[in-house]
């Protein structure tokens, strides 16, 4: 329980007043000589237990009445949110509002989790208006903003819905920084969140760090969590995993990898509306499981310039995850630069790249010494089959990848301690028998070794490997041999990615040179690297770079004002086109367990209120009426107790002494 007038509580000793008055009254007795003592003793003995009980009740009622009066004057606040702990109003109330995309899930008709949280918190915060500083830290901007009028919280742009993710540890850190920078006194931190695990990141070291910082503060800090962790019963989500524009002669098409998720068991056909450059169409998809990867193509015909579109699901509990936006760039020529110390292997790569680009000049073959003067401006892929680059060369390769280009490193045949972005080559191995090394596991869903458009698996199982070179470093393994050694690994660097492949298309190494594996692999790497050459980007909401934030972005998908930093959609700024979608973590259904959430706040005073408890009630409210009526009830009870007993009507009055008669 919190009090708006806590200084009144200094009067709590006054509750002893009735007891003191009673004791003084007893001490003020007057002496009386008495003859009829035997009746007095007898009457006292008979009345003692009842009288004592009545006196005790009278005292209790009076004491409680004074207590109720004091509590009434102190203007208490109570409710499930505040609990019943006695405390004064804090110096500052920091409201940490999760306004990530998942918070737009409806909890009741026309009310989302975010709206529910705002309603409850603004009502609770209104009680502190004037007594405490109210500061809002929202998940999208994480900039502390003082609120003057708590009831207007719902209308604030800082509390509006976004398509961003929430970073709860960062929000807590922002709250801590605010307390320190502003030298705040006692504080309450109210967190409103749906406990989505991807937002909370319970394993993140920052969490422990910020909680220990809070517990180290000299002032009293109490954390209250409004957990809106109700899971939806029927919700669909759509997200674009990959978009590739592929040219076929004069024609081109868009190839999509789309992830669909549902929380229901229904297997009805799902109508998906597709919008491409303003033209709408509908496609039926049947989901055979709760999550599904859907591949889809859109024909662009002879169109050569850029465009945009979106996939849209029917409306459901969360409108925020029903749309996935995409943008595509114009046709670009796919060109590769091959740096090879071995001319034979280099030729394999040159042929493969030229076959993909349908241009014999598409691949430029260079020796490592020539790389320094090579022009990489129009290149989308760098194939490196030589000792790993060092010094300025390594820096140039790194910049190329960071700009969105692709790079793949093939073995040079010699072990070296030279690393590139933490990865280096180990020893070279040759198979002891004729069977050689065999690939048993590779990623067929996405990446260079994914299935073909027609759904055929690349013949990696039939490819023979006689020689390979080990690689050392922390990379994602896309394919591995039967003994666990990696064949192909990938690592993100800036906007692009670089790969390490353990074998060569040379006959001495493998049969990769036959083509069925190498050509599609190079083709996909070329296409992935073409992002470097395009003015189109896929961005997650909330992750717009600082440089891009300075630009003026115009929404293409909506006539209403949208913010490219926070809202999903397609935006144009000059020649640049960006498709902003919610971060993939927002579609993750995993919710943090309440016990786990509680354990995260060990060391600070913590209280949690789950949304099931908040559907109908306000988080808290002034409860002075309860104490006022309680006091009145106690006073009425006390007045009944002090009423004199029933008149002794039933008592037999002794008959007057009657005159005796003389015996005869």
């Amino acid at each position, binding site marked *: 329980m919190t009090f708006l007038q806590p200084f009144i509580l200094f009067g709590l000793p006054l509750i002893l007043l009735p007891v003191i008055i009673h004791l003084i*009254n*007893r001490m*003020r*007795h*007057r*002496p*009386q*000589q*008495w*003859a*009829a*003592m*035997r*009746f*007095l*003793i*007898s*009457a*006292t003995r*008979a*009345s003692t237990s009842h*009288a004592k009980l*009545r*006196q005790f009740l009278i005292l209790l009622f009076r004491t409680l009445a004074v207590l109720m009066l004091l509590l009434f004057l102190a203007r208490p606040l109570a409710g499930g949110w505040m609990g019943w702990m006695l405390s004064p109003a804090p110096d500052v109330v920091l409201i940490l509002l999760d306004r990530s995309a998942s918070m737009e899930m409806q909890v009741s008709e026309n009310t989302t989790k975010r709206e529910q949280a705002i309603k409850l918190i603004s009502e609770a915060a209104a009680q502190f208006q004037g007594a405490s500083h109210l500061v809002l830290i929202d998940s999208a901007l994480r900039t502390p903003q003082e609120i003057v009028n708590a009831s207007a919280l719902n209308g604030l742009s800082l509390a509006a819905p976004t398509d961003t993710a929430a970073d709860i540890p960062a929000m807590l850190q922002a709250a801590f920084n605010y307390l320190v920078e502003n030298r705040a006194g006692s504080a309450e931190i109210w967190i409103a969140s749906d406990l989505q695990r991807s937002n909370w990141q319970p394993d993140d070291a920052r969490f422990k760090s910020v909680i220990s910082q809070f517990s180290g503060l000299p002032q009293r800090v109490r954390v209250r969590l409004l957990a809106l962790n109700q899971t939806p019963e029927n919700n669909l989500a759509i997200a674009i995993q990959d978009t590739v524009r592929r040219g076929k002669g004069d024609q081109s098409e868009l190839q999509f990898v789309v992830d669909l998720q549902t929380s229901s068991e229904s297997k009805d056909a799902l109508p998906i509306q597709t919008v491409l450059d303003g033209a709408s169409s509908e496609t039926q998809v049947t989901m055979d499981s709760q999550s599904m990867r859907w591949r889809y193509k859109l024909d662009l015909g002879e169109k050569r310039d850029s465009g945009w579109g979106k996939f849209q699901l029917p409306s459901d509990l969360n409108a925020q995850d029903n749309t996935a936006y995409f943008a595509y760039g114009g046709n670009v020529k796919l060109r590769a630069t091959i740096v090879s110390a071995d001319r034979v292997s280099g030729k394999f790569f040159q042929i493969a790249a030229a076959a993909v680009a349908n241009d014999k000049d598409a691949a430029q073959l260079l020796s490592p010494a020539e790389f320094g003067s090579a022009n990489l401006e129009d290149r989308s892929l760098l194939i490196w089959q030589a000792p790993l680059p060092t010094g300025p060369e390594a820096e140039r390769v790194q910049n190329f990848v960071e700009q969105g280009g692709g790079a793949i490193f093939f073995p040079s045949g010699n072990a070296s301690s030279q690393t590139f972005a933490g990865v280096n080559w180990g020893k070279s191995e040759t198979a002891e028998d004729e069977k050689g090394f065999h690939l048993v596991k590779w990623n067929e869903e996405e990446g260079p070794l994914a299935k073909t458009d027609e759904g055929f698996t690349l013949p990696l199982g039939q490819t023979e490997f006689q020689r390979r070179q080990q690689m050392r470093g922390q990379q994602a393994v896309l394919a591995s041999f039967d003994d666990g050694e990696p064949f192909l690994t990938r690592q993100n660097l800036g906007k692009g990615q670089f790969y390490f492949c353990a074998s060569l298309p040379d006959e001495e190494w493998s049969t990769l040179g036959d083509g069925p594996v190498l050509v599609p692999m190079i083709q996909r790497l070329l296409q992935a690297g073409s992002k470097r050459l395009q003015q189109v980007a896929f961005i997650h909401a909330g992750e717009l770079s600082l440089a891009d934030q300075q630009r003026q972005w115009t929404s293409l998908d909506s006539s209403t004002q949208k913010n490219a930093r926070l809202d999903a959609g397609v935006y144009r700024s000059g020649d640049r086109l960006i498709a902003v979608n919610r971060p993939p973590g927002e579609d993750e259904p995993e919710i943090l367990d309440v016990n786990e959430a509680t354990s995260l706040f060990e060391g600070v005073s913590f209280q949690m209120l789950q949304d099931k408890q908040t559907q109908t009630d306000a988080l808290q409210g002034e409860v002075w009426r309860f104490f006022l009526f309680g006091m009145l009830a106690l006073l009425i009870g006390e007045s009944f107790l002090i009423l*004199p*007993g*029933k008149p*002794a009507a039933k*008592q*037999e*009055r*002794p*008959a*007057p*002494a*009657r*005159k*005796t*008669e*003389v*015996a*005869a």
Partner: protein
Amino acid sequence: MNSLLDSQVLARLMGQPLLARLAMEGTVSGQHKSPHRGSSVEFAEYRNYTPGDDIRRLDWRVFGRTDKFFMKEFEAETNLRCYFVLDCSASMNFVGKNERRFDFARRLIAMLAYLVIHQGDAAGLICVGEKIVSEIPPKRNPAHLQNIFQILEGVEPKGETGLIPVLHELAEKVRRRALIIVISDFFCDPAELMSAFQHLRFQKHDLAAFHLLDRAELDFKFDRPVRFADMESDFNMVTEPAVIRDRYLEQLNGFLELLRRGCNEFNADYRRVITDESYEKVLADFLIARAKLASAA
């Protein structure tokens, strides 16, 4: 005139003698009935002559008409011996809103003693504290009054009451029928008190009991806690009178009813007197009631 006496009250009461309800055994003739036949003017009965009878009492007229000897007998009238028993225990010191209980009792005894002696009867006094404090045997001599008054003025109540054993002792000691008037608050065991009354009545004494009570004892009205100190011991207690008033009155009224019934049963003349009443009225009522009963007998 003694300070205990009021001449005007006495003058008004002198016309009404104090009569015994029962036959008394006096030493001289008086105005009270005697259990024996005597020579008064009051005809009693006829009986057959038996040898040895005094022939002066033969009714010759009856003999003339019937030729038989009949003895004509008359009521004997004798004087009264009256014992006043005054309770001198500390509880008689009680002072309520009116006169001290003991003073009221002394005044009653003084007035009655005066009336008794002046009508030719004998009056004696026994003062009882824890035991007999002082005792004057009954005498008819008017000078005897002074002795009674002296003792009444000199005695002061103190200690516990020894009334009950003294009454038993009195019942045994006074062999001839007498009027015994007990004046007390009777705050003792009612059963034992009734036993003492029964003993007195068994010895054929005429018994009158003045039960003196104060208005405060009967009403028990106090508005705040009171420390009650027992007048006959060191015991005291603090209590809220308002809380126990009902119980107290219940107990007291039960006791009074018990006394009333007991006195009725043993034919004792029980008089409950509240000390704010006029003692003249108390005495007048007492004398008149007794006179009516005596004449009716």
